[in-house]
Each structure stands twice: as structure tokens, then as C-alpha cells.
């Protein structure tokens, strides 16, 4: 029953928030408490891996409450709990309509948790659709100037994603050779006909490609991340977008392995295009938030590259990259939000000299440097571990797309240095620099995220050793590269590459 | 006729200037045949300077001499000759501009009485101490 805790905590908070008095401080505390409790529950589950839970719900529809956690979903659960808590703390203390705001944030978290816990495709879809409503409302209600057009775009793309996903999952369940079933166990066990596999995978690629997003399905992403309030952007980029990668891993690599393997060269090309597209666009941006949005897009491409390669190492890379990317983008959006709150702008040409020790935002910019370095894959930080695993794991399968992604990763350093040079160095404008320094309260979420980035960079074994057992069996290609001796893939030492 | 210094002493309104000339050790030079053109500030001109100014100079003869030399031109020039040129080089080295003909103004000082002829030059009485620069 402990499996229900991560679901019940945000659910209770979502239900309780509207009943609380309209007091921004109080609601903020309740929401943060829910986030931390969920995180604690997640850590508890990590210490004592629970047995799967299965409660029949609507058996006629094939819907049952199948819940479970493995080495892939548990890290994601922890990530989403952490980012939710940090997003709550990164919210301005005087947030207007705080009950609604935090309620929607936690509802999003509830949906996310549901998708990660689900061991049933229909339950997954249900939770997936649940996320759409609060996120759209958050962007539409609390966004910036262009929030309505951002929300419309977000809604169209993501509703399409949800609609397609619902159709494909229903088809999958019905086409299931062993009778109608949506349980992951059944879906993984049996083979679909090749034609069915192709149609299903096309549908999943569309649905999750919209979510990630992948180029050319990314039309909603930059504007949404730009217009969304900082905590929402943190949650969307840090946690919600991971659903796309997770979905592809689950429904593509795991359930439709043959077609996935057959199509993977093309998927790798799309991934490379996404990566280079994101990096090049990030270089061209004049708005810090858009820069981070495009940077995030580019790094999503790396995930898909690793998924396409589907070697034990690259799939390890997927898990680590999901975590690293979640932490890094959430950190960057959080810092950009801090900069905007203090300086009143995120336009790169308008600000400079923020590293100024007396009148700038030296602490924030210091963390920004760390975040950018992590994004650029500097050793010792989480991004390096993730990218190393991705590149090393994918190289054996797709050298050329990997090479392109490596170039794009190098371009990360270009926009990182450019951003930091323009904003951090140079002359601090005397007229404009009339703000107070950040307080420790404001710094807290960024400090936590940055700390985890460092820890994950120095000691990645915490994650890899945990996820390895779950990930390695999903690998479609084997390599002679193994991470640790006790890995399940260690028995496939023969260099039989299915390139 | 009298020398420049004798003329000045006779006038009675150049006590500070004469004392300064003595302090700076310029008496001998000004008694030489010259000829010189001297712009002589009256006592009131010196007392118009902020307190301490004159005392510091009197305590430091070389510096005082430099300021006094700025009031002296080589050669005897009367008003008519002086206004023909825009500026004249003083014995100190810095130029003295002729700012106005009527009234006759030398640098920022106004000439109260012009063309007092002496044995060894010409004296023009001015109402303000002039300073180089």
C-alpha cells in the first residue's frame, strides 16, 4: 500500500487547498509540505522497493489499478516530486490566487506521479490526460503577456498528443494477441503483428514526439516555456517533458521492439536534427527564457538518440539524462526567473554585469554558471555523466547522428558562454541596477537543484546502479561495453552488434 | 625722472608690491636700466586675494618672484604700443593677453592709470593681481 502514498499525498493536498483560507503563506506551506512528503515517500520506496499493487477497477474496460515502480520510474518519481517542491518554493511568496495556483501545480504532479506509477497502459493514458488540464490552465491563467496564445498552442499540440495516445493505446489493448489487455506485463510479453506494430509505433512517435517535443513537432514548446510563470516552466521542462521520453522507452522500446529497432536509424536522424536545431536556435536567442527553452529542446534530442540506439549503455544514459536534464533545466528556469524578478527583464541585450559582487546578482549568476556548465557537459556535473553515457552508448549504433549530437553538445558551450559573457560580465547599468540582492529563501530551490547536479556529477553510481537492472533487459542492441560487472547485460559480452 | 621703484614708492599705494619686490629679491633687477614695462597692482589688489595667499608667497621668494615677473615685460611699451598686439610675453614666460582697449584691460585686470613714464621703463597701474594660466 505504500505505493499509493505518492499518489495520495498530492491528491489530499489538491482536495484540501480550496478549503483553506485565502492566505498565500499558508497555501504555499501546504503545497511545499505536500511536495516534500511525496519526496519522502519516494525515498522510502527507494529504501524498501514495494511489491506491485493491482486492484481491479473497471474490468470490462480492461482498466485496473496496476501500480508498480522500477529502476526507471522511481528516479522519475523522485525527480517530479523534487521539482514540484522546488517549483512551489520558487513561486513568489505573494502569488495571486495562490490556492488555484498551487492546486494546479499539485494536480500536475498528481498526473505525473500517476503516469510513472502506472503498470497499465490505460491508467497511463488517464494520468497523461489529467496533466493537460492543469498545465493549460496554469499557462493560460498565470502566464505572461502572450499567455493566451501560448496556452492555445500548448493545448492544441498536447491535446492532439493525448488524443493520439488514447487511440493508439486503445488499439494496442484491443489488438493485443492474448485478448484485450492493457497491463504492461501482458503488453511486454506478447508480439504484435508487424503491421500492427508499425501503426502503433507511428502513433506513439507522434504522441510522444509532440510531448517531448521533437522537431518538427515543437511548435508549442518555446512560446509555452517563455510565457509560463517560472515555477510552471520548471515543472513543464523539468518533469512533464520527461513523459515523452519515458513513453517512448515504455511503449516503443519495450512493447514494440522489432519495429523500433527497424525504424531506429530514422528516429536517430530526427533526434540529431532536434539536437542541432535546438542548439543553433539557442545561440540565436535574445531572450534568456527562450534560450533555455531551445537548450532544453536540444537536450531532448539526446534522449531520443539514446532511445533509438537502445544499447544497455545508452538506455542507462536515457535515465541519467532524464534526471540531469530535469535538474538542469529546472535550475536554469529558476535562475532566469530570479533574474527577471530582480532586474525586470530577461532580454540578453538589456542586462550585463550581473556578476558584479556588490550591485549585481553574484550568487544567482554563480549558480547560473554551474547550470550552464552542466548543460554543456562539463565533467564533474550531472550533464557530463548523462552525455557520456548517451554518446558512448549510441556511438556503436549510429555514429553519424551521434557525431552530430556531439557537435550540438559542443554548441551548448557556445550559447552558454555567450549568455554568461553578455549577462554576467560587462558593465552593470547604473540606472537599472537598483535592486536588492537575493535572499536565502529565494536561493533555496536553486541551491538544492545545483547541489544535486554536483552530487549526480561526482557520484553518478547512485542512479546508474539503481536503474541498471531495469534498463538493461530492455536493450535492443548489445555491446561489449558494460558499466559494472554485476550488470544484467554482462552476460552479453559477445560483440554482436545489430547495427 | 625717477626709476620704476621710486615712482611706485612715491605714489604711496604700492606698499605691498614694494614689500613683495624686496622679499623676492627683485629690487636690484628693477633698478637696472631695463627698460621694463611694469603692470603694478595697487595695495587693494593684493588685499583682495584670499587670506594667506600673499604670506605663503612672501615666505617662498622664488615662487613670489615668479608671480611678480608675470607683471613685467621687457622693453618700455606705452598703451598705444601694447594694444597693437593681442598678447605679450612676460618675464615669467607666460603670455599676458590684452583683453580690451577701451577700457584698457590687461588679462582680468583693468588699467587704472596708464603710461607712467620712468627712467627705466613704463608703469601701468592695475586694479587686480594678474596670475599666469
Amino acid at each position, binding site marked *: 500500500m505504500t505505493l499509493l502514498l505518492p499518489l495520495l499525498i498530492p491528491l489530499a493536498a489538491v482536495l484540501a487547498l480550496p478549503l483553506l483560507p485565502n492566505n498565500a503563506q499558508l497555501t504555499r506551506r501546504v503545497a511545499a509540505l505536500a511536495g516534500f512528503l511525496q519526496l519522502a515517500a519516494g525515498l522510502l520506496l527507494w529504501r524498501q522497493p514495494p511489491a506491485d499493487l493491482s486492484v481491479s477497477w473497471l474490468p470490462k474496460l480492461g482498466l485496473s489499478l496496476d501500480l508498480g515502480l522500477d529502476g526507471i520510474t522511481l528516479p522519475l518519481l523522485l525527480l517530479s516530486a523534487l521539482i514540484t517542491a522546488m517549483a512551489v518554493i520558487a513561486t513568489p511568496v505573494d502569488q495571486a490566487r495562490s490556492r488555484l495556483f498551487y492546486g494546479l501545480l499539485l494536480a500536475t504532479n498528481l498526473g505525473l506521479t500517476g503516469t510513472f506509477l502506472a503498470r497499465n497502459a490505460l491508467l497511463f493514458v488517464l494520468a497523461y490526460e489529467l496533466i493537460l488540464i492543469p498545465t493549460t490552465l496554469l499557462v493560460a491563467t498565470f502566464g505572461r503577456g502572450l499567455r493566451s496564445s501560448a496556452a492555445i498552442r500548448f493545448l492544441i499540440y498536447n491535446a492532439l498528443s493525448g488524443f493520439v495516445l488514447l487511440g493508439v493505446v486503445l488499439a494496442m489493448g484491443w489488438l493485443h494477441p492474448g485478448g484485450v489487455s492493457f497491463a504492461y506485463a501482458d503488453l511486454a510479453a506478447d508480439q504484435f503483428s508487424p503491421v500492427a506494430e508499425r501503426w502503433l509505433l507511428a502513433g506513439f512517435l507522434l504522441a510522444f514526439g509532440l510531448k517531448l517535443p521533437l522537431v518538427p513537432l515543437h511548435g508549442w514548446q518555446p512560446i509555452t516555456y517563455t510565457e509560463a510563470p517560472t515555477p510552471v516552466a520548471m515543472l513543464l521542462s523539468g518533469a512533464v517533458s520527461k513523459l515523452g521520453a519515458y513513453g517512448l522507452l515504455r511503449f516503443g522500446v519495450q512493447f514494440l521492439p522489432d519495429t523500433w529497432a527497424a525504424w531506429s536509424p530514422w528516429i536517430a536522424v530526427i533526434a540529431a536534427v532536434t539536437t542541432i536545431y535546438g542548439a543553433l536556435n539557442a545561440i540565436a536567442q535574445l531572450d534568456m527564457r527562450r534560450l533555455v527553452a531551445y537548450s532544453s529542446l536540444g537536450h531532448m534530442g539526446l534522449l531520443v538518440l539514446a532511445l533509438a540506439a537502445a544499447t544497455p549503455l545508452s538506455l542507462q544514459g536515457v535515465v541519467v539524462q532524464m534526471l540531469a536534464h530535469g535538474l538542469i533545466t529546472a535550475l536554469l528556469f529558476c535562475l532566469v526567473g530570479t533574474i527577471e524578478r530582480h532586474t525586470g527583464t530577461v532580454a540578453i541585450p538589456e542586462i550585463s554585469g550581473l556578476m558584479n559582487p*556588490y*550591485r549585481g546578482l553574484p550568487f544567482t549568476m554563480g549558480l547560473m554558471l554551474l547550470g550552464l556548465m552542466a548543460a554543456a557537459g562539463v565533467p564533474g556535473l550531472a550533464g557530463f555523466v548523462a552525455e557520456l553515457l548517451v554518446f558512448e552508448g549510441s556511438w556503436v549504433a549510429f555514429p553519424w547522428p551521434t557525431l552530430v549530437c556531439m557537435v550540438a553538445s559542443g554548441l551548448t558551450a557556445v550559447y552558454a558562454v555567450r549568455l554568461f559573457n553578455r549577462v554576467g560580465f560587462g558593465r*552593470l547599468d547604473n540606472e537599472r541596477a537598483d535592486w536588492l*540582492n537575493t535572499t536565502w529563501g529565494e536561493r533555496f530551490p536553486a541551491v538544492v537543484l545545483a547541489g544535486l547536479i554536483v552530487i549526480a556529477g561526482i557520484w553518478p553510481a547512485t542512479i546508474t546502479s539503481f536503474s541498471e537492472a531495469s534498463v538493461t533487459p530492455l536493450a535492443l542492441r548489445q555491446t561489449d561495453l558494460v558499466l559494472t560487472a554485476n550488470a544484467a547485460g554482462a552476460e552479453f559480452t559477445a560483440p554482436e552488434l545489430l547495427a | 625722472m625717477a626709476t620704476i621703484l621710486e615712482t611706485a614708492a612715491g605714489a604711496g599705494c604700492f606698499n605691498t608690491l614694494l614689500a613683495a619686490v624686496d622679499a623676492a629679491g627683485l629690487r636690484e633687477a628693477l633698478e637696472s636700466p631695463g627698460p621694463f614695462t611694469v603692470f603694478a597692482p595697487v595695495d587693494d589688489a593684493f588685499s583682495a586675494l584670499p587670506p594667506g*595667499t600673499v*604670506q*605663503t608667497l612672501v615666505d617662498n621668494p622664488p*615662487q613670489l618672484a615668479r608671480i611678480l615677473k608675470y607683471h613685467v615685460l621687457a622693453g618700455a611699451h606705452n598703451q598705444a604700443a601694447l594694444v597693437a598686439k593681442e598678447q605679450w610675453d612676460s618675464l615669467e614666460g607666460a603670455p599676458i593677453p590684452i583683453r580690451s582697449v577701451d577700457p584698457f584691460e590687461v588679462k582680468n585686470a583693468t588699467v587704472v592709470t596708464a603710461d607712467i613714464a620712468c627712467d627705466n621703463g613704463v608703469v601701468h597701474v592695475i586694479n587686480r593681481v594678474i596670475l599666469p*594660466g
Partner: protein
Amino acid sequence: MTPPTALAPEAATKPLIPPSTHRYADVIHRLEAGGSMLPDTPENLKQIIGIYKAYAVPMDFYWRDLLYIAEQVFLNPIPAFKYFISQEYLDRPCSYAGDQSKLRIWRGGEKAHPELLEFMARGETIRMPKLLHHLWHDRVNMEFAEACMQAMLWHQGMGGRFNDYLETDAYRANADRAIKAYFKRNPLMLGLYKLFPEMFLEKVKQLSYTANLGLFWEVMAPVFFEMSDIYDEGGFKGVPDAMDFLVNGIFAVAGRPIYHHVFIDGECFEIIPKSEGFTWLYEAALPYVEAVFYRTAPFRGTKSYNAQAGQVPDNQADFHYGILYADVFPVGSAGIPPTLLMQDMLHFLPPYLQDTYKQHKRGEDDQLIQLGITFQRSMYNVTSAVIQALRCALLYPLDDPNPEHLMANRRFFEAQMDRFLRPEARLPQIQTQDYR
């Protein structure tokens, strides 16, 4: 608009000249009324006097050490201890303070200021040997004073005869005697002198400027101390009073000799004798204001300039990196002279200024910048005093009845304000109290 003539008959007297149309017409009219470039507010008065005090204490060290370097350290090939000023120079009677002074500007004593001695003993840390304070950089930063000297040396021709004299044969002969005497027991250095005489001469020129600056500041330190004491007694009514005190001070010491003596084995070598007639006003003060307040050079560590792209003026006279144009915000970058000065002043801030800084901006966290901007204000006031003194010396009284004379004054003031037309000038900012 008809003025109420019955109430204010003096308002009916028409001004002799029309108002200025200069961009800084307000400032010019204030100067013509005997005011300062800095607006006359109690807050400005408090800030500038407080910072004069904080400036004067390290300045008391600067001038003593500058003279120590110029007169005693001289050409020491390894001047590692040039900031370790001798007791003799700490006790050297200031010419403008103490009972022995001929012209007493400050009522206090002639030796090094007690606050300075206290700081030299303790620093920011604890009592420890001088060498440790030095290495820990817990001391008065002479580097700032030397940067000022170098600005004067580098800009050179800024009026006065000082620089011309450094090129004369008399100066070369004097320097030659001193160099030979200084190295008479050091054949290696004498040999080097034979090989590279110009290099040694250049070093001596630099030391002459060091003496020049030391003699200049020997005056300013007591002036600022006295201003602080007068303010503490409630003596100044406003900013113009403070400026007038400076104007009178400038005149009173204008004739002070500027010289360079070197003491080698107890023998005095007059490299620049007093008899050359160099004066404090022409050979020290005016070049100092020009070189340090207006020009200086871009400080390393504050901003990068691309000379090829024309970001640095071709003409040295157009340099504009002095305190009047300074962007105080980069203060804090390690080791740059402005930061060192701010750091020096921070140690001696009077309590009322510390309180002021606590109430604004980031309070104690950015005191260095707040006091830097106060310093900028105070130097606009000093510059105003220089401008008024020059007007007084070279032009006409402010109440001159002759409109032509008033126009000459006006042209002079406008020409001075033209220097602040460039966008870097902080004159517009200091007009309000928001700039902190």
C-alpha cells in the same frame, strides 16, 4: 507673469546677462551664484564632509610614504619595503598642521593621524608584525597613490612648468649626481647606468612626480581634516561654504614650493630645487586635477577597451577615466586602484556616514559602492572649488557690474561644463540624491 514688485523689489532688478542655454544651464547658474556643481543639500554636505574625513586619514599615509619613497627609497633596485614607512616620516611635521606650521590649516597635530596609527597597528585583523599585515594586504593601499602618480607622469603636459623642467639639462645634471651618489658602492648598478642612462633618468622623473604628489597631498590632508572638524562643530551652512573653504585653501597654499630632494647618506641632493619657483597650484594641483579627476587611464580589471575600434581616444587630452566620469559599480574587482581607495576609506568612515549607508540600497553589503559614489560627489565639489578658484584667479568676481566680464565668466563656466557633455560624465547623476 508679473512679479509682485511690491513684495520683492530686488527681484525686479534684471540680470545683467541672459540665461545660459547650455545643457547644464542649471549648474552654470548655480556656479555663477557662487555655488558648487554639487547641489546644496544637507545630505550632500554630510556625505562630502564625511568622505573627506575618511579620505584624509589614508591620505596622511599617502603623502608621507610618497615623500619617503621619493626622498629615501629613491632608486632602490628592489624596493620591497617602500611601503614600510620610517618613523621619521610618520613623525615628519606636516607643514600645515601643528604648532610649528607657518600656515596652520588644521588645528590638530603635525604627526601622523592617530586613527591612521591605530589602523596600521591592528588593521582589519589583529595586532601582528608589519610584514604580515603587508602580505595579508591588511594595510593602507599605497598602490592607489602610485596609480595617481603614474597618471600624472603619463599625461605629462597639463600646464605648469614641471614637465618641461624634467627635460632640461639642469635636471639631467642634478639627477646624474644623485644617481651616481646613490650607487657609489654598487658597481653593478653604475655599470647598468652607463649602459642605459635614459632608463635611470626615467625612474628619477617618476620619483620627481612622486615627490610632487606627496607635496600636493601634504596640503590636502590637513584641509580635509579641518573641514571635518568644522563640520562637527556645525560650522558649515551648506555645500557652497565647504567649497569656499577649499577655494580659500587653494589660494592660501598656491605659492607653496614644489621640489624634489633626495637624501643619500644624510646628504641632500636637490634634484628639483625650490629655487626653480615651482608652485603648488601650477605644478601640482592643476596637473593633478587634470590627470586624476579627468583623465587617468582605463583601469585594468574594470572593462575591456578596444583601441583599434576607437573605444579609447586618440588624443590623451580626451581621456575620460577619472573619478568625475567613473562608473563606480565595477568597484570591487580585485586590485584595481579605485577599489583600493574605497577599501582604504572604508576603514575610516565617520559613524554618521556608516549610518547613512546602512539605510540605503544594500546597506552594509555594498558600502564600498555607496562610499565610492559619495567620493564622486565630493570630488565634484573639489573640482567646483578648482573651477571657482581659477575663475577668481584668471577672470572676474561673480558680482562684477560689467556684463562683458560676466559673459567672460559665463564662457569659462560653459567651457568647463563642456567637458561633462560626454555620456560618461556623472554630473547629471549627482544632481539627485537617488544616485547612490
